[in-house]
């Protein structure tokens, strides 16, 4: 069998820390090859080596049997390697077409031939079923479409080998289904794909083979048809992993969060939350199920003070907090795991230690009379790093930017849970986490509940909502349209309610 890509014995260090240690990955032509490993195992690093963003200390890369030296992404492009990064690299106020041709503009005498480019892009998008609007601006299109733009970008440059780094982490279930169709079409057209994902279901569904890495070391490659999710999980973690969350009956107490008839606008001044009511009691986890864009983000931002409430009221522990400053709300014992960890959750240029005290830096013991006590900060940081198994290169001093995506997430979750708030808002808390970490985070959320705290969970994954919540509130078009007991509903019913069908319609 001929391999289109061979990475042999790759080693990559970051100042003494070994992120990749003697890893071998061989990609056959026309296959979807999954790359699986825990958070911080070194998957993104390995792919960045292949794409020319990092130079390996040891090992060699062969493309179609020929040894190559990929010292920058342009060389990778010329070799037919394209990468869709986990965090998109698009210019927000450029159009789709402009973004796709950026850096590879077709020109005559210095003039960009936009029309010709647009035609080529239209042809490509038709061929692969990548539906985009070539004239729309990036800032106006959905995440799913942005991702299709990224894929088109690689195809426009003639990529034969596509690397997808956690493409499904930020997509809704519908968009994931579409993406899987697209990947299958790409393979049919003779492309080869390396796919990084933490979702074993997706691996089982689309991949041909799986290469597993653990803590920077290559564990081996298995054929998907001959393996199973539990076996994959065990290969990856090195122990057996529980898949169903075990939890006892909830014993709800007093109302902690009371949201009454609130109206919230989005950034375009369009009403996104339209008279929404919600209650979360102590000792229960309420899951919000809904399709992205039905007001979830605005609801969370309104509760946490990041967005003004136009009408209605919000209270915590019976105390009115409507339109208070974020700090006052945080001090009313509200914790918030934000949806976008890079935008809100972390100061990427701070060390992980500094990030741990983002909301508590001004309180004792982290500081006194305006003077920081970085010893105390260290102590707290190390405790959280330990407790939540945040894997860092250089302990609390590691810049947050240098942590793997999943470990950034674990650090944020650790910080929020450690503050032990009466109300914990968890927005897509397990986005980008490996199966082991998801299990751990779920159990920590349940632990908070058992301690008598209120937890509000927002997730696009129905599995998660159904397994973790004690009560499900379905959000549609800015309102809670129904409340369900997770034990007495199913994905079909939820799916219909989320799509705006009434309950009667759902039963019929």
């Amino acid at each position, binding site marked *: 069998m001929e391999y289109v890509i061979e990475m042999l014995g790759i080693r990559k260090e970051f*100042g003494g820390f070994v992120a990749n240690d003697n890893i071998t990955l061989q990609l056959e032509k026309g296959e979807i090859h999954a790359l699986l490993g825990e958070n911080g195992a070194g998957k993104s690093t390995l792919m960045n080596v292949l794409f020319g963003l990092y130079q390996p200390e040891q090992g060699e890369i062969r493309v179609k049997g020929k040894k190559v030296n990929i010292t920058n992404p342009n060389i990778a492009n010329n070799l037919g390697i394209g990468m869709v990064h986990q965090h998109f690299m698009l210019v927000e106020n450029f159009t789709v077409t402009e973004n796709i041709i950026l850096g590879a503009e077709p020109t005559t005498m210095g003039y960009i031939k936009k029309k010709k480019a647009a035609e080529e892009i239209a042809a490509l998008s038709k061929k692969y079923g990548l539906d985009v609007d070539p004239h729309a601006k990036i800032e106006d299109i959905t995440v799913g479409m942005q991702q299709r733009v990224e894929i088109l970008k690689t195809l426009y440059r003639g990529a034969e080998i596509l690397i997808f780094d956690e493409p499904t982490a930020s997509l809704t279930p519908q968009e994931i289904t579409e993406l899987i169709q697209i990947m299958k079409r790409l393979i049919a057209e003779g492309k080869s794909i390396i796919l990084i994902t933490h979702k074993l279901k997706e691996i089982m569904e689309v991949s041909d083979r799986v290469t597993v890495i653990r803590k920077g070391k290559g564990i081996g490659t298995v054929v998907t048809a001959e393996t199973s999710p539990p076996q994959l999980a065990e290969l990856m973690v090195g122990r057996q992993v529980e898949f169903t969350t075990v939890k006892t009956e909830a014993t709800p107490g007093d109302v902690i969060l009371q949201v009454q008839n609130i109206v919230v606008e989005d950034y375009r001044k369009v009403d996104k939350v339209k008279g929404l009511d919600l209650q979360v009691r102590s000792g229960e986890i309420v899951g919000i199920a809904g399709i992205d864009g039905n007001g979830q983000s605005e609801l969370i931002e309104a509760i*946490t003070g*990041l967005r003004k409430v136009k009408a209605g009221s919000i209270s915590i522990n019976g105390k009115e907090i409507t339109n208070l*400053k*974020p*700090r*006052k*709300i*945080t*001090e009313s014992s509200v914790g*918030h795991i*934000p949806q976008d960890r890079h*935008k*809100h*959750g*972390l*100061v*990427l*240029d*701070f060390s992980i230690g*500094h990030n741990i005290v*983002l*909301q508590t*830096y*001004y309180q004792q013991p982290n*500081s006194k009379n*305006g*003077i*920081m006590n970085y010893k105390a900060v260290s102590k707290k940081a190390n405790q959280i790093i330990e407790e939540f198994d945040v894997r860092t290169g250089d302990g609390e001093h590691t810049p947050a930017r240098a942590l793997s995506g999943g470990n950034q997430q674990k650090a944020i979750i650790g910080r929020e849970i450690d503050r032990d708030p009466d109300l914990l808002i968890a927005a897509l808390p397990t986005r980008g986490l490996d199966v082991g970490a998801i299990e751990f985070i779920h159990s920590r959320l349940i632990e908070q509940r058992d301690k008598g705290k209120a937890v509000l969970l927002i997730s696009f994954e129905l599995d998660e909502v159904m397994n973790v919540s004690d009560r499900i509130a379905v959000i549609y078009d800015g309102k809670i349209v129904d409340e369900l007991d997770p034990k007495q509903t199913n994905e079909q019913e939820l799916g219909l309610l989320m799509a705006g069908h009434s309950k009667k319609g759902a039963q019929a």
Partner: protein
Amino acid sequence: MSNRVVNILVPIISIILGLIVGAIIMYASGYDPIAGYQALWQGIFGDMYSIGNTLRQITPYILAGLAVAFAFRTGLFNIGVEGQLIVGWFAAVWVGYTFELPAIIHLPLALLAAAVAGGFWAFIAGFLKAKLQVHEVIVTIMLNYTALYAVNGLIKYVSDGGYKTPTIHETASLRSDFLKDLTDFSTFHYGLIVALLMAFVMWFLLEKTTRGYELKAVGFNQHAAEYAGMSVKKNIILAMTISGMFAGLAGAMEGLGTFGKMSMMNAFTGVGFDGIAVALLGANTPLGVLFGASLFGSLKYGALNMPNAAGVPEEIVSIIIAVIVLFVASGYVIRLGLQKLAKKKEAK
């Protein structure tokens, strides 16, 4: 090679490259580079008088560099140091000649006036950015001109149509007989102590206080700062104001130290703009700024000796400085070279 070593090596290599380029240009234009550099050296360290004046020259560069560096560390680009320096200069001189007070009150008061004036000038830019999202670069550039012409007008007004202010009282002066005797009648003054103290203040503020933590967080990521409950607007305004206070003090060095008065100017002093290069050379850290300012001040002052002692035009130093700044700014090239070198060594 560790990052720290590289960070120190880049400016040093840049300086060497700058000097080599300077030598080549001198040689190519028919001057003797060795004599030229000897004259430069003499001009900087030749005698106590030169050393005194070199130190005097370094002082405002330190403060201008701190102003730019502080703004940069808090996510702002203060191009208005020049204007803030000018208003600071005038404020210090005005307090210096208007009031009659004991030195222990008068001098600090004059320094404070400079800091407040410079701070206020920068506050305008900070306020407009925070409240109306006007970019600070545009506002600070315009405020430079406003400061220049407004202060010229004020000088005319306070001197009844003259072109310079009265001289400040002894009690507000940074000069001293002791320093004058020590350095053979140079204009060296106590301002250096103020500058060093401010370098410490900047370090302490940014690295040790909760305020510094907030200012940096807002500078790096406003969304995360807001999420964490910090007031983004307040911190932007404050950061800009503090930066302007450093700049205002740079003006006080000229007003209370070097000149003892202020004359109408038909062009900028240039110190404020050089502060950008100083901050760049010093990688925006207080210690680095001290280093960058020393280099700048020494070269600028030492260059004055070159035409007399070696017949080399002093502009050659402007070229050398430009080359150094260029290499530091494009430090990437040097970094790449260092990496290649390290790899070769490993291979052997």
